[in-house]
């Protein structure tokens, strides 16, 4: 099998597993919606304020939702021994790790992107800003899955792993949050969002190149 076939086989397996446990996917999605809906209740229903906050709130909610879904990435495969078998295969770990992260993004990132415009409308974002919100999430949520995978791999099988992941991963998510929310802000204020989106794209390329290696090292540390 060549590299592409391996990734496709892995993707199909991960997606099938996700389809059989649809509850997990929906939980993360509803968490995202609920967190975003809490903000107006906390700060008041003033439309002007909400319009200012909208992009940032949706992005913070996306960050938290992405973090919440990290537990699924390796934990069940670790529990039933699949992960060890994958490490024993002759395929370089970087390849199947990339495949697994891609599947994780398809299952946990893409639903957020699809729902985000609805939340944006609730916050009164303009049409242009809604478009930028979707593009920024498209560029940013894969980074969340990639960086999060390092945290998930390092905390594999630890007690209190979920809380620990948040402490490890959230500080590293900050640049994505700044540029993602900044892009939406730029679209709302008419300053333009190209610079922010370009930087997000740059971060995505960098993360795509580097994180699979770090995840592979982290998995070896956690499994040996």
């Amino acid at each position, binding site marked *: 099998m060549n590299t592409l076939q391996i990734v496709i086989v892995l993707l199909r397996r991960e997606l099938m597993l996700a389809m059989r446990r649809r509850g997990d996917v929906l939980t993360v999605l509803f968490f995202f919606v609920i967190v975003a809906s809490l903000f107006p209740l906390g700060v008041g229903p003033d439309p002007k304020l909400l319009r200012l906050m909208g992009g940032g709130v949706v992005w913070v909610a996306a960050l938290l939702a992405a973090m919440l879904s990290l537990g699924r990435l390796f934990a069940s495969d670790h529990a039933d021994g699949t992960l060890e078998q994958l490490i024993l295969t002759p395929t370089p770990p970087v390849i199947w790790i990339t495949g697994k992260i891609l599947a994780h993004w398809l299952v946990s990132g893409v639903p957020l992107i699809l729902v985000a415009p609805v939340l944006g409308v609730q916050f009164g974002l303009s049409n242009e800003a809604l478009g930028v919100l979707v593009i920024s999430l498209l560029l940013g949520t894969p980074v969340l899955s990639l960086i999060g995978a390092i945290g998930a791999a390092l905390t594999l099988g630890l*007690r209190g792993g979920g809380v620990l992941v948040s*402490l*490890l991963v959230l*500080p*590293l998510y900050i640049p994505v949050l700044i*540029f993602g929310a*900044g892009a939406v*802000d730029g679209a709302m204020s008419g300053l333009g969002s190209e610079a922010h989106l370009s930087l997000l794209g740059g971060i995505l390329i960098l993360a795509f190149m*580097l994180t699979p290696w770090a995840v592979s090292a982290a998995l070896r*540390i956690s499994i040996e």
Partner: protein
Amino acid sequence: MSNFNWYKYSSPATFYGLAGKMIPWFYGVAALLCVAGLYLGLFLAPTDFQQSDAYRIIFIHVPAAWMAMVIYVVMACWAALGLAFNTRLSFMMASALAPTGALMTFISLWTGALWGKPTWGAWWVWDARLTSELILFFLYLGFMALQAAIDDPRRADRAGALIALVGVVNVPIIYFSVRWWNTLHQGASVSVTKSPSMAAIMLAGMLVMALAAWMYAIAAALSRARSIILEREKNSQWVAQMVEGEA
């Protein structure tokens, strides 16, 4: 000196003795420098015409902020050495440095707040430097929390080392993103970058205090490394012999 065997001290047993001899010196020099630096800063340096005496907190604040950053980089270097050469002592040094680094970050945040209240009129502003210092504090906490959560010391060492390296790659990215974020959201226009030219004596006091902070950090890290060595090697021969010798 040419045939001096440096590798001898990569063994915890020999390093334990060496560190024990070095620690009093570093603490002593740190105390002397601290007294000298505080004398320069609190008695000899003139009162600032803009900030009056409130500025004097920089003699604590600036060295602590410098150390907070330096220690993270040094910690990552030890972590990289440990992962590359598989030396236990490197990992021990990395985990010995983390609490000192977190302490320095906390001191710089705390003294920054004490300075900000009289000068800016606010305990905290979302300035780029303050925010990145806060994030650095979170990175230290993450490192320590990860090591504390893992029972197996070998895994704890390597997992901590990896997260330190990931952190050090991210620090510049975080720093610049926070800076750009701040310039775009320039609400409370406070400029810390535009520092007034500093009197030579103030600079001297600050540099002496920075050296004192270096010496203190080295001494604290070494004594913490000694405790870690004892804890890890408690079942080994040399520790048993040492304890018997002392008893």
